[in-house]
């Protein structure tokens, strides 16, 4: 058995754009995910960050097999799952569960909490006995910090944070090996966010879960994840250990993202020279050739619009798909977090950098 729970290779998902009502012909495609590869190691939390439309949610749905890939392979425990269907797929779903973004629309308002959390047991014919199922559900509720006496309540009687706890309990019901959490806290208030994040890390420690954590908030990902992948326009531009990514980013896009995050510290906010990306993300229907970031990249040179960079190890950093990766000095100039570690480690050699 390998150390990887999931192995994704050259995964592609294109959504066709069609024209015509009776005779539909394909006129183009939205290249939502366009050839990404990554591994998810057992017991780790892999973060996937990126902006709207970069394909991170599509990746989550492909992992969960809620979508079928256009091409490429997804291996789960060394078994190809990219194209399975029917009863095999149903079997697979017991092993992986999803936590959704919006705790309001992801719970059926007409079912009680008990029924929502207990449904997986019925669907997978694990426990059809009402009494023992009730006991299991109440244990789960206890585990995620809900009052088991609220078994018969409806979702509308709960607050946003509590609803997200219901979503977590439902995902845990079948004791899955993999949890895919798609923006699990972005709909919650700041003071509630921390509660759910703590719950997830606690459960991971207790149950040895593997989590794929998808979010747009870089500080949340830094807190939660062991490794982080950065996506841009359907491609993976950088994958690195948490520590490495945040203190030695190599891809200019990662640098720009980190630079753009507002820091809750007025002194730091004033000290950094913020690098602001111009323009918008190009359309995934017709993405730029070669390196997709070249239209907005501050470091782009001719090579960037003629040759696609491969995701390779870069000196001093993790894997990045870039011809002209950032140096520590450049990163320190833009990102306060990097500046701190950089100035302390290289203070003697280049004091002029900050």
């Amino acid at each position: 058995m390998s150390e990887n729970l999931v192995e994704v290779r050259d995964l592609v998902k294109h959504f066709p754009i069609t024209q015509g009502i009776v005779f539909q012909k394909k006129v183009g495609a939205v290249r939502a995910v366009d050839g990404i590869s990554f591994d998810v190691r057992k017991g780790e939390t892999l973060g996937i960050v990126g902006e709207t439309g970069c394909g991170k949610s599509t990746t989550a749905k492909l992992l969960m097999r809620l979508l079928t890939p256009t091409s490429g392979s997804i291996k789960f425990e060394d078994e190809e799952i990219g194209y399975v269907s029917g009863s095999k797929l149903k079997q697979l779903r017991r092993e992986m569960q999803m936590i959704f973004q919006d705790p309001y629309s992801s719970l059926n308002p007409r079912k009680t909490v008990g029924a929502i959390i207990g449904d997986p047991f019925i669907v997978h014919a694990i426990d059809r006995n009402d009494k023992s199922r009730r006991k299991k559900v109440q244990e789960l509720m206890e585990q995620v910090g809900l009052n088991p006496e609220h078994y018969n309540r409806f979702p509308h009687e709960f607050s946003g944070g509590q609803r997200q706890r219901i979503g977590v309990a439902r995902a845990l019901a079948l004791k899955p090996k993999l949890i895919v959490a798609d923006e699990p806290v972005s709909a919650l208030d700041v003071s509630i966010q921390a509660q759910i994040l703590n719950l997830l890390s606690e459960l991971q420690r207790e149950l040895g879960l593997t989590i794929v954590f998808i979010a747009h908030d870089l500080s949340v990902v830094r807190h939660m994840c062991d490794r982080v992948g950065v996506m841009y326009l359907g491609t993976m531009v950088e994958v690195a250990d948490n520590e490495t990514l945040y203190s030695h980013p190599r891809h200019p896009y990662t640098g720009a993202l980190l630079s753009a995050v507002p820091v809750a510290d007025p002194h730091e906010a004033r000290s950094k020279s913020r690098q602001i990306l111009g323009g918008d993300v190009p359309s995934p229907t017709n993405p730029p050739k070669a390196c997709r970031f070249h239209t907005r990249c501050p470091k782009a040179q001719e090579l960037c619009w003629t040759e696609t960079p491969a995701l390779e190890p870069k000196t001093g950093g993790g894997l990045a798909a870039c011809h002209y990766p950032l140096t520590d000095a450049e990163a320190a100039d833009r990102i306060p977090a990097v500046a701190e570690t950089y100035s302390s480690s290289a203070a003697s050699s280049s004091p002029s950098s900050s």
Partner: protein
Amino acid sequence: MTPLLDVQDMHVTFETEDGLVRAVDGVSFSVEAGKTLGIVGESGSGKSVTSLTVMGLTRGPSTKISGTAMFEGEDLIAASDVQLREVRGNEVAMIFQDPLSSLHPFYKVGTQLVEAIQTHQHVSRGAAWDRSGQLLELVGIPEARKRLDHYPHEFSGGMRQRAMIAMALSNDPKVLIADEPTTALDVTVQAQILELIAKLQAELGMGVVIITHDLGVVAEVADEIAVMYAGRIVERGKTDTLFDSPAHPYTWGLLESIPKLTGPREEELIPIPGRPPSLIHRPSGCAFHPRCPYVREEHKKIDPHLEPVPEDGGHSVACLLAPNTRRELWAKLSAGEEPEQARAEVPLQ
């Protein structure tokens, strides 16, 4: 300097089937020209209702509003609808949170801008159209003239928000109220929009009120910050003061519960226990007491008022703990201690 907009003791209540909602319960703040006030709070803290009420957008048969909002000698709360229409979108303008639902999907962006201009200025349609083009250019939309002919759905999220800002600026407002202007946007676009607002403010000398739940955003743009909880301002002070020596346990909780991008990675976040209170059944005494780790018996009975923090100019807080106790507690918390630990070590007074 006399403030541009001066809100004093504003109360807003809504009559609902479940009871009386005290959305805003005695809020006072002011904005000077060229300055930015940040209002921070969670959902249901009354921050949006505060701004909407200043703009006269919460008026209705079941709403009761009291207090004053003075703008250039005129009380916006007492003003008639006709008077208010003169000011709204003209001298006091607003940017809303969700640009998609705030723009009319049936009309071209240009048409909507022209409407905003012609409502307040006697200019021809052609002149207004020209001005609209300039405005879109000002907010950094490429090929602005061509874009006037487009519909909102043809704009990206960031561009829609820019169009909204252009509309708010169309009559050179003196006060700009931005209600969560970047919440629906990605970080890189958020950075663009915040920079744009700051740049325009410097050029036009507007007073800006920025309402957000994101402490990072206010740290970057605001000169002064007001923290709202359960319809009241619980702490107010200069941006640096508020981040360096916050005095309210709720502000501490907010600062401690967000994951940081800098410094060592936190082992565990320290969440604020419980959840925001109902505005119908406001907790007795200090509204924060059910969630406050430093609560004492009498805090459940006495209602604290916003009072100046001794020896700290312009900083005020509504907390019943003694100033010394607060200082000691924050010293412990900022050194990385957990609330229970700090509580055990500092005698509460």
